[in-house]
């Protein structure tokens, strides 16, 4: 079963349209949704949760249409947005009590364990939390009500490398279960890249690409060469190039490049930049 299935989703605002989006997150997998600021990532996530309403198309979460009984569906979905909306005066323990009355499947011991593992202060009120602490708390809450699907919207941006590393570890623990899926949206994936099974690129409200990550990494590479050397590469193999007076850097399809040229591996982030430039 697919954890999320989006078909022909369209939503228009003045000045922005999410255009005919088709996106699938297969069950048990992690999908990285990558796009520049304003590409439509948060809009997509809000549409999935029916916080804002679609113009047309269909969205299925964990096998159910998202307009039917969304409250029940939300019991099984953990969400972390870039701002965590928690009353400022509450402490970790008090927040736990609130959540126990919010979610039917609240697991107080799991919450306790996560809070300890993330080293969150027990007595501090939420308003004195650092950004890293707030995000960790958001993730702890999201993972303490037996959810099957985790939606992370820019949840790791602005965190320091040590906290990001903690987050990566917690997320990889979560996906140990075959029934657990994650959608991570971000403009930078870097350390989450390794975890992702699928990658989707969103640019100005349009889906540029949706593919298995390993396929992308196997398919594309970067070449650094002289303008003359570049001529030995068939034109259709060159996806994008940046020229300087001293040489050329080009995004290429590995399979079409003569074997004597050295191709460097590409990161998902670099690939995104190339693809967006090509689309412009």
């Amino acid at each position, binding site marked *: 079963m697919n954890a999320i299935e989006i078909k022909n989703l369209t939503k228009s605002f003045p000045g922005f349209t999410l255009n005919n989006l088709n996106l699938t997150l297969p069950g*048990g*997998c*992690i999908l990285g949704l990558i796009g520049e600021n304003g590409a439509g990532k948060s809009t997509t996530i809000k549409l999935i949760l029916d916080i804002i309403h679609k113009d047309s198309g269909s969205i299925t979460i964990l096998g159910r249409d998202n307009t039917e009984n969304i409250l029940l569906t939300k019991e099984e979905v953990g969400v972390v947005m870039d701002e965590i909306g928690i009353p400022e005066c509450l402490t970790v323990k008090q927040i736990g009590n609130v959540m126990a009355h919010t979610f039917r499947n609240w697991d107080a011991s799991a919450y306790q364990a996560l809070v300890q593992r993330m080293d969150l202060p027990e007595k501090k009120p939420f308003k004195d939390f650092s950004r890293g602490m707030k995000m960790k708390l958001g993730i702890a809450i999201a993972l303490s009500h037996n959810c099957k699907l985790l939606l992370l919207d820019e949840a790791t941006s602005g965190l320091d490398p040590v906290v990001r590393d903690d987050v*990566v*570890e917690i997320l*990889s*623990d979560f*996906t*140990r*279960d*075959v029934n657990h899926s994650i959608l991570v949206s971000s403009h930078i994936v870097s350390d989450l890249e*390794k*975890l*992702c*099974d699928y990658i989707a690129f969103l640019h100005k409200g349009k889906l540029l690409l949706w593919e*298995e*990550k*390993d396929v992308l*990494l*196997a398919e594309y590479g970067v070449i650094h060469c002289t303008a003359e050397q570049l001529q030995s590469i068939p034109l259709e193999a060159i996806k994008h190039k940046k020229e300087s007076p001293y040489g050329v850097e080009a995004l290429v399809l590995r399979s079409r490049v003569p074997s004597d040229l050295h191709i*460097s*591996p590409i990161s998902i982030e670099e690939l995104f930049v190339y693809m967006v430039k090509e689309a412009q």
Partner: protein
Amino acid sequence: MHILIDNKSGTPIYDQIYSQIKSQIISGELQENEILPSIRGLAKDLRISFITTKRAYDELEKEGFLYTIPAKGCYVAPKNVELLREETLKKIEDHIDQILKLAASCNLSKDDIVSMILFAMEGQE
């Protein structure tokens, strides 16, 4: 079992897992019928995509280095002598390929190559 992942090397991660498990099976470090970590477990421990580990396992299974018992797990397959021989032959062929390429780059004749190989063989005897 050891698996060391190098993110900076150009080798794809599934390939790194595949070749490291394979060489540990060939060397006997991983014994016949020994159970291997589950695909999801390994992905979690290495903090990588589960599709990546699945691909490494699929490849190993396709080549007969491991077998799967549904709902139980993946196990090291009994060593297949024929398979190992084929593997080695393939390696030799690859090396010969390289020899020929290098030879062509400095205009060695067929006879030159043959005599070089004969000479090397005499040295080993």
